[in-house]
């Protein structure tokens, strides 16, 4: 089965006072139908911009280049009208903070049915019926009652479930989940991750999960893309990337995490901090912080290359290659 | 639907007959004659209420019969007997009797409102239904000139009493009829009050029962309008008469008629004669220097077309006024000489004036600035001391101003009103001119106050003013113009010193 979404050489420039700056720089990946694809990376690495670029929702005056073929059509080249027909209908999005992504003044019913009625041409009661089903699907108790309520009447976890219900309303093929659990407690996060997992299974839904939490990645993603400075550092199957990383950056991220078994060992930070927008170094963006950097890293821009089956890494010296 | 350009707004009211729209900036507190003394009130009440005597057109030197067919004055000027006409009726059809007259005049006296001073020292009696006697404690030649005042309009006493009016002693507390008067008029004049508001408009409609000839206009609307808007309205035909335009504003309105009447208001300056207030201003030579240092012509120019120099304190439209040529002429040399004689070196005086009022479109401030410039040329430094009229009035009334620029509007159009300017009298005291300061003048004044015969009276006032122009602390300056601008369709329009527009007589 072919890829549902094929992103090729995606580049995003954002407008800043100093002129356009690249926030995403030649990113390529593909997502298969029914797959959970994870995008990981530190703050500012361009994860959110990647998602927004796919939906044409980038901030004011941003520009894109490259291709993002979804069901045979390039999302980036699509006229605004057609893209609007894809949004919400074919590709839906769930964002980080459910307390800000749901409209505080509109009833759950309005928020859950307005796009159903728009995209699917449903009548009021029809849409309502489906809304009740949806709420039941995401395990909101007493869905009838919930429809009349407003977001403020729900807890954070409930709100995120509702936000997911909103995203699923028109039965999209692809769900972009931008840090869907970051704002939630671990206990609640577990429930949301389970929900995503189940939905994928039941609905053959493809999901792009964006997160900086490798633990979350490990729990749900089938394949993982690690971004750094707007570029791909490494892409591959979950287990490969997390247990046999081939890029020093991925390695560094994993080492910075508390050891799974605890113990007295101190944490291992990556020295320095991620580059600011527009200040991404030449060559390998990670080289100033990389313990394995060789002179070439400074000059040559590394492209992701296949290092194992389905596993690409953008680190030509491949210092971790032997470690596997 | 919006009458943007309609030149004949009469259509709006129906009932046939023409509508007259008069624009004026309201100075109106009430239409109850016993309490009314503001210009707009005078204009309105004059059309509603008949008085015993009245003036024709703009001539205020000759009282003519109104409700009184005729009158006789006692030789001592202490009593006046009026014969009432018998056909006069109030707007409800009841005849006007001497009882109504007594009631009305006593009411003015006892309500103690703004016009009550008109009745000072006067008592009214009615020997029979058609006769009224007005008696005065002191000889009072002004009575026939006082009586035309619309505040002394005759009201329907029966209806008034029924609605709370009282003419008895203590009416200031007992009389509760004011709001009734403001809702409904009780006069015998050609118009009745239709609607009343102190900020928007007053509407008069014709009195069907009026005893005299029917007026030309079936309806009169007096609207509260700013002067500058008045000009546009009358130009556009929205209104027929504009009352408050300055001479400058009236220029170049060729398609309209302009009725020019000299205003009875007189601007004057005084230099306080009281040495305790100022050693400078009380110096007679200094006073002379001021008198001849002022450039009267430049002040007239400032006041615009129609304004004239006030040759004496009595305005030109009144009996006893000086002829125009008798005014003081500027004489810089004489002024300088007088100043030198006074022994004052480069004197500096403070000139008080009310800065926030205008009279006939004229600012005190502008006048004061001119006076300052004039006197500078003869070596007198004038320091301008503007203040709000409320504040300034206090020092003016207290007689504590070193030098003052003020204006006198007549209470009634009789020269006796100007006896106030003499030493020891109301205005004289304000100028620090104490009793006994000019015995000759004071004697003349006393005589003028008791002389009945008009030509004799007139001569006395002329003498008084000539004397005042020779020496003394008061210098009359100018009489501004009082201008009416009207549509050409309004005929027989005249400007009256008392009630501005002769509404009754319009053709």
């Amino acid at each position, binding site marked *: 089965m072919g890829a549902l979404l094929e992103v090729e050489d995606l580049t995003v420039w954002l407008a*800043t*006072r*100093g002129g356009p700056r690249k926030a995403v720089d030649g990113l390529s990946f593909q997502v298969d139908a029914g797959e959970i694809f994870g995008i990981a990376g530190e703050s500012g690495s361009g994860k959110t911009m990647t998602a927004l670029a796919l939906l044409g929702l980038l*901030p*004011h005056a941003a520009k894109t280049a490259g291709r993002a073929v979804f069901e045979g059509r390039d999302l980036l080249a699509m006229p605004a009208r057609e893209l609007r027909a894809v949004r919400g209908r074919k590709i839906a999005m769930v964002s980080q903070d459910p307390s800000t992504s749901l409209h505080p003044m509109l009833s759950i019913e309005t928020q859950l049915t307005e796009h159903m009625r728009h995209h699917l041409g449903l009548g009021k009661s029809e849409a309502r019926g489906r809304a009740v089903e949806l709420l039941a699907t995401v395990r909101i108790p007493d869905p009838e009652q919930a429809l009349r309520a407003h977001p403020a009447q729900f807890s954070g976890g409930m709100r995120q479930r509702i936000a997911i219900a909103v995203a699923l309303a028109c039965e999209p093929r692809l769900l972009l989940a931008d840090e869907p659990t970051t704002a939630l407690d671990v206990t609640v996060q577990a429930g949301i991750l389970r929900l995503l997992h189940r939905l994928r299974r039941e609905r053959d839904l493809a999901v792009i999960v964006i997160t900086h939490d490798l633990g979350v990645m490990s729990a749900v993603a089938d394949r993982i893309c690690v971004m750094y400075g707007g570029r791909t550092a490494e892409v591959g199957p979950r287990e490969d990337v997390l247990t046999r990383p081939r890029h020093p950056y991925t390695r560094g991220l994993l080492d910075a995490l508390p050891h799974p078994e605890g113990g007295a060992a101190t944490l291992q*930070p990556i*020295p*320095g*901090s991620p*580059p*600011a927008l527009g*200040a991404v170094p030449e060559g390998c963006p990670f080289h*100033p*912080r990389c313990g394995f950097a060789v002179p070439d890293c400074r000059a040559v821009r590394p492209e992701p290359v296949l290092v194992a089956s389905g596993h690409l890494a953008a680190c030509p010296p491949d210092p971790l290659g032997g470690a596997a | 639907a919006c009458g943007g350009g309609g030149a004949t707004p009469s259509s709006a009211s129906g009932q046939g007959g023409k509508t007259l729209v008069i624009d004026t900036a309201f100075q109106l507190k009430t239409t109850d004659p016993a309490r009314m003394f503001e210009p707009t009130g005078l204009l309105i009440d004059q059309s509603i209420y008949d008085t015993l005597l009245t003036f024709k057109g703009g001539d205020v030197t000759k009282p003519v019969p109104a409700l009184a067919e005729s009158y006789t004055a006692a030789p001592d000027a202490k009593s006046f007997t009026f014969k009432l006409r018998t056909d006069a009726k109030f707007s409800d059809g009841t005849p006007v009797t001497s009882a109504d007259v007594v009631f009305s005049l006593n009411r003015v006296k006892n309500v103690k409102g703004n016009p009550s001073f008109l009745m000072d020292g006067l008592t009214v009696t009615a020997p029979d239904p058609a006769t009224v006697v007005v008696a005065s404690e002191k000889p009072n030649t002004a009575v026939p000139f006082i009586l035309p005042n619309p505040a002394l309009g005759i009201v329907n006493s029966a209806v008034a009493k029924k609605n709370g009016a009282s003419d008895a002693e203590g009416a200031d507390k007992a009389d509760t009829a004011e709001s009734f008067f403001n809702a409904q008029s009780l006069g015998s004049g050609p118009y009745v009050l239709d609607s009343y508001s102190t900020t928007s408009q007053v509407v008069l409609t014709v009195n069907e029962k009026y005893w005299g000839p029917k007026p030309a206009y079936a309806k009169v609307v007096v609207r509260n309008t*700013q*002067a*500058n808007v008045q*000009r*546009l309205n009358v130009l556009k035909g929205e209104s027929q008469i504009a009352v408050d335009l*300055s001479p*400058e*504003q009236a220029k*170049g309105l060729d398609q309209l008629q302009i009725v020019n009447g000299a205003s009875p208001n007189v601007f004057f300056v005084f230099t306080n004669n009281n040495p305790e207030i100022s050693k400078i201003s009380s110096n007679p030579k200094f006073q002379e220097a001021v008198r001849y240092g002022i450039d009267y012509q430049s002040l007239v120019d*400032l006041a615009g077309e129609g304004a004239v120099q006030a040759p004496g304190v009595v305005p030109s439209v009144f009996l006893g006024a000086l002829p125009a040529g008798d005014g003081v002429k500027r004489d810089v040399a004489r002024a300088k000489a007088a100043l030198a004689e006074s022994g004052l070196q480069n004197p500096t005086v403070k000139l008080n004036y009310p*800065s*926030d009022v205008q009279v006939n*479109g004229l*600012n005190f*401030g*502008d006048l004061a*600035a*001119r006076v300052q*410039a004039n006197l500078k040329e003869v070596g007198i430094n004038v320091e301008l001391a*503007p*203040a*709000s009229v*409320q*504040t300034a009035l206090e020092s003016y009334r207290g007689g504590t101003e070193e030098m003052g620029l003020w204006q006198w509007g007549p209470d009634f159009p009789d020269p006796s009103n100007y006896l106030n300017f003499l030493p020891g009298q109301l205005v004289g005291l304000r100028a620090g001119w104490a009793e006994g300061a000019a015995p000759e003048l004071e004697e003349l004044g006393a005589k003028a106050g008791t002389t009945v015969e008009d030509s004799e009276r007139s001569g006395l006032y002329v003498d008084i003013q000539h004397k005042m122009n020779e020496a003394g602390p008061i210098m009359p300056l100018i009489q501004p113009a009082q201008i009416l601008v009207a549509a050409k369709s309004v005929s027989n329009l005249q400007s009256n010193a008392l009630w501005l527009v002769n509404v009754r007589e319009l053709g």
Partner: protein
Amino acid sequence: MTSDSTPLPAPRARRDPAARSPWRQPLALVGAAFVVLWVLVALLAPLLAPYGPLDQLADKLLEPSAQHWFGTDELGRDVLSRVIHGARVSLPLAFLLVAFAAALGSVVGAVAGFFGGWVDGALMRLADLVFAFPGIILAMAVAAALGPELRNAVLAVVVVSWPSYARLVRGLVLTARNSEYVMAGRLLGSSSVRTMMVDLRPNIAGPVLVMAALDVGNAVLLLSGLSFLGLGAQPPTAEWGAMVAAGAANFDRWWVGLFPGLSILTVVLAFNFVGDTLRDALDPRTARAIRG
């Protein structure tokens, strides 16, 4: 020692208030230019004006000409000279008014926000009261009572215009007072007065300044409005509102009222341009909105 001693990254622009330089905006530039221009005009009025503001020249109501660029008025005074001298009346008083109102309001607001509790309650209720009080009516009453002088009008307007500053400052103090950096300072042993002066003052000055800049325009409008009604500056003072009123007496002589009116407009507009831009630059709320 931990290893994060790499060179600092390039300054981050996104939270830098100064980086959003307001002076790059053309409107602000135009506004600033006009403000400077008018201030200069006010300062140099006697040098710039071809005639004295009160000099009554021979000819009344002359049309604009080479001799009298803005014509002459009904008393034969040079309108240009009067317009120039008018700046000396309106501008200093407007500044004075705003300065007093801002100072009074800031002190009240700071005290209220700082002490909280019943002090806050009482002061803010007072502010509410004064805020609800119709300012222009008070100004009129004061003018009528104390005499129609611009000075009195200023006094009256100050009395009613401090509450907006009090509210602004109180709000700022309250948020700042609960902010973590103030708490940190207090934990270090900073007294509350020192906190106020050292930590809060710089954060409050900016917004107050912006409000004041916008208010100068309003003050000019209000004062000229009062003069227009005859309750402010009195003739023969060359004041713009009073000049507009004089011009209104004679529409055919458009120049008498037009130029003073335009002067008011340009001054107010200039301060609004500047104030508006400053606000955009300083107000984190709109600034955030602009960043998207």
